[in-house]
């Protein structure tokens, strides 16, 4: 029972890390992405390949994994972010399907069998599993949150907020739209890479469907449910959406449908998410703590 809870908590942590990255792209910079699972997958596959084929330890491979994922994010983001918003949704879905197909059909990536035999992570001579692996994930989640907090207070983050609100006004203040959208995209995909590496070493057997389009929808649902552009939103969203299917076991088969429905309902009735401004939680809190903020 305990091990079962730890498993769920670990996966929630990993989802939260990846969703934090998506939040930088969607919530901070206002760029829709429906293909974030592709970068989650690129992180997982690079970590798996570096561990199984190149024999690198998790720690030696991790910086490479993050850089590789961010570089691919940069390459794919450059043409994508130049298109208009509605196209961006389609383009990113396209990226997701293409990346999944590459994993599935190119033998180097293990084909339909995926990649197995990914070793556990070693730390101070200890093999991380169960609780210790969860603590490692929690540590990285806190690191990612600290970075997001820092970024939201930095000039770069402010430029992203401005772009999200009014692109032409932001440009008239010296902000290059392409450059800062790319910055957000690179930061977001790097976090997806980190999450992917942790996932690969946790599951230890990965295949292309782990990173298919429904996973992108799940990630976006997490961000929208928690509150786009907030710091803790992705964590709250990941906890709720990670725990719900476990609570309502019969729902599991309809998970994808449920996420889609949730996404539509949230966008219609609570676009700011659970933690965003003007949301129910936010209103209750401002009633409890009048003038609490600022």
């Amino acid at each position, binding site marked *: 029972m305990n091990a079962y809870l730890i498993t769920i908590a670990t996966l929630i942590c990993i989802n939260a890390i990846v969703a934090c990255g998506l939040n930088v792209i969607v919530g901070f910079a206002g760029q829709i992405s429906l293909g974030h699972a592709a970068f989650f997958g690129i992180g997982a596959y690079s970590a798996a390949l570096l561990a199984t084929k190149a024999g690198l330890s998790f720690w030696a491979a991790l910086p490479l994994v993050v850089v590789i994922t961010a570089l691919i994010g940069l390459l794919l983001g450059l043409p994508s972010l130049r298109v208009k918003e509605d196209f961006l949704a389609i383009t990113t879905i396209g990226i997701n399907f293409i990346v999944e197909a590459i994993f599935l059909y190119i033998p180097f990536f293990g084909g339909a069998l995926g990649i197995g035999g990914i070793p556990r992570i070693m730390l101070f001579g200890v093999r991380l599993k169960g609780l210790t692996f969860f603590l490692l994930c929690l540590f990285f989640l806190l690191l990612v949150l600290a970075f997001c907090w820092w970024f939201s207070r*930095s000039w770069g983050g*402010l*430029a992203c*907020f*401005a772009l999200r*609100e009014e692109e032409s*006004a932001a440009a008239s*203040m010296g*902000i290059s739209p392409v450059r800062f959208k790319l910055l957000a995209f690179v930061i977001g995909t790097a976090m997806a890479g980190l999450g992917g590496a942790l996932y690969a070493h946790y599951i230890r057997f990965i295949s292309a469907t782990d990173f298919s389009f429904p996973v992108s929808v799940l990630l976006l649902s997490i961000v929208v449910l928690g509150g786009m552009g907030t710091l803790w939103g992705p964590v709250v969203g990941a906890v709720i959406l990670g725990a719900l299917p476990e609570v309502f076991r019969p729902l599991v088969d309809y998970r994808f449908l449920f996420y889609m429905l949730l996404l539509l309902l949230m966008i219609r009735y609570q676009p700011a998410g659970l933690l965003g401004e003007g949301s129910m939680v936010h209103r209750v809190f401002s009633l409890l703590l009048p003038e609490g903020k600022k």
Partner: protein
Amino acid sequence: MNSTLLAVKAVSKHFGGLKALDQVTFEIRPREILGLIGPNGAGKTVCFNLISGVYKPTAGEIIFNGERTQGKAPHQIARRGVGRTFQIVKPFATLSVLENVLVARGISRYNHLGKIWSSWKSRAEIRQALEVLDRVGLADLAHRKAALLPLGNLRRLEIARALIVGKRLLLLDESFSGLRHEEILQLEQLIRNIRADGITVLLIEHNMRVAMGLSNRVVVLDHGRKIAEGSPQQIQQNERVIEAYLGRKGHSHAA
């Protein structure tokens, strides 16, 4: 180069078959206030969008501070010291008034990857942003969310942001429209002070009393063409200008 800050040379902008601007030429000298007037749809805002890089001219040249700037992107032109407001205000709605101004204060950093990681929540930055807000009379509302401001205050916010960016040239697109009488008087004084600080101003204005009172010189557009240029006195007596205005919509007083 010193006697001209901005030269617009035979500039045209066509949208499909529509000649929004047709072979327009004028110059702005350093430290002057140039009024750009004309009936609705004359091409004034298009002219601003060409100078600030939103559009590329179909033909012609734009020289700012000795450098050809047509075809440069808006953020590149902003970095050269050209600040602008928008006729249809464009606040960063979910940010506070103060944060709106801070976005503009980051202009010297956005071009250097190394300079964008430090925090904008420093005391010095906030103090200087507050000073600018004080100049436009918005200091009391610094922490209010921009989306909550009425139009008059949003126009001042636009000016505050443009003031920070526009170290050399300020483009004001109908900044007076929608303001009450006493607000207009305050804003007129502010623009005179800005000029006294050595900043050049290009002003689009429908309110004739304001346009004529503030401008050193006036350029008149109609149907995308320049129909007159001169001192406010000359313009007020110019036959073609009177005709252009009377021909279209009785008397021009859109305050």
